[in-house]
């Protein structure tokens, strides 16, 4: 089973990371799921693949009543992001799934009905969670062409999807980045190959460096906090992406 770690809490406003399943087979890329709660409601960010649904569902249930989930946020269309969608909907059929308009016709291949999808325009949108405003921030072409991060201004947390992702070697599975220079080596190859546009990257770095962020939470690897957030933005800004040897 995965474990849950509360990374931010102010009363019933919480950010919970669902991470690290020791029983997960190695050929599946490791993913982090996040739950934001506010009031009596919860929003699940990038719920993960169909294969890991039991692990995520049972970990989440230990922390939070899953029948009070108000929705799913899918940063983009990848299978590791939301191929579990049909199973979550089986449990809670009324739940909306927020996703880029670009994937509105593609993600239904994983499941859902016409009522399920709330599409987000390219410029982003606000999502309200029992009065808490979460901002879907554009991060197109990083790596997906229709891609959003999710920003919580109150908690100062940015869920960054695949941006900031690192493929950590076995045994190095701390939840937070401890040594930036050592950590970033595991992020470099991923960003060079998966991220497709230097122009999009530059605009993302500009936008995000103006935001007040305590924690930058990627969907793979470890969370950047404090000074490491700006360190990451600077590093990414310098990196040339969209590189393939072939």
């Amino acid at each position, binding site marked *: *089973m995965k474990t849950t770690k509360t990374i931010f809490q102010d009363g019933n406003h919480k950010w919970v990371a669902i991470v690290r399943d020791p029983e997960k087979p190695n050929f599946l890329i490791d993913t982090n799921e996040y739950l934001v709660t506010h009031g009596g409601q919860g929003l699940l960010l990038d719920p993960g693949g169909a294969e890991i649904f*039991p*692990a995520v569902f*049972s970990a989440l249930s*230990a922390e939070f009543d*899953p*029948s009070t989930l108000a929705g799913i946020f899918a940063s983009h269309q990848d299978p590791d992001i939301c191929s579990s969608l049909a*199973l979550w909907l089986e*449990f809670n059929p009324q739940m909306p799934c927020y996703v880029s308009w670009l994937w509105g016709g593609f993600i239904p291949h994983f499941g859902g009905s016409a009522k399920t999808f709330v599409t987000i325009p390219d410029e982003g949108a606000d999502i309200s969670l029992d009065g808490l405003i979460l901002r879907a921030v554009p991060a197109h072409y990083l790596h997906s062409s229709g891609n959003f991060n999710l920003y919580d201004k109150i908690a100062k947390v940015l869920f960054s999807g695949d941006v900031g992702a690192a493929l950590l070697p076995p045994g190095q599975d701390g939840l937070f980045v401890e040594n930036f220079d050592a950590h970033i080596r595991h992020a470099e190859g991923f960003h060079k190959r998966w991220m497709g546009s230097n122009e999009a990257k530059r605009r993302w770095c500009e936008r995000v460096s103006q935001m007040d962020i305590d924690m930058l939470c990627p969907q793979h690897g470890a969370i950047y906090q404090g000074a490491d957030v700006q360190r990451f933005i600077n590093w990414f800004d310098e990196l040339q992406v969209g590189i393939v040897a072939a």
Partner: protein
Amino acid sequence: MTTALTTISATASKAGVDLLRIVRINEEIKSVVGVAFKINIMALNAIFLAKRAGTAARGFGVLSNELRVFSQDLRNCMSSLTGLIHGCVNEVSLVLQDIRHTRLLRQAVEMAPTARICQVLAAREIENDRHSVRLASLRKQLKRALEDAFQMVELGGVLAKSAKIEAAYGQSFAVPLAQVSGEFDAIVEEIRSSLEALRRSAFFTGK
């Protein structure tokens, strides 16, 4: 819709309902575990009071030790309930996964009933049965664990009521002893009624 497909969708919604039920049980157990935690502190409080009262409350002293043993047993019992309920949540979500796979495979078999796809479906169904058997066994274990917890809490209720009676003989300590045993009794009663409701959950009766 054909009969086979009707059956599978009925099974799917049953698994969905099962998952909802087990989630409800999980929520209730989480709150019972929280309440049970308070009992430990109360039992220590009772022992402390009994020590202060000394010979004035010898009978209460004996009972407060029993209450402490009960609170420890209850804690162990709650941790095994927590383990079992997690197992059940996991297993029901696996069954949900199975049902989705099976539904898609059955549709493929209906459209193109080749030997190979039928074999694949049969293998799938064997796997489904394995999960169902495991779920049934977990369900039984959880039911038994709930019964055990219920019996234990009934015993705790008797202890708390005896402590209330003994408190009256506590001379100058009668009032604080009555208060502590009264609180204990109220908490035990709260747990007892939660467990009572859980035992009757449709997850076990299948209605």
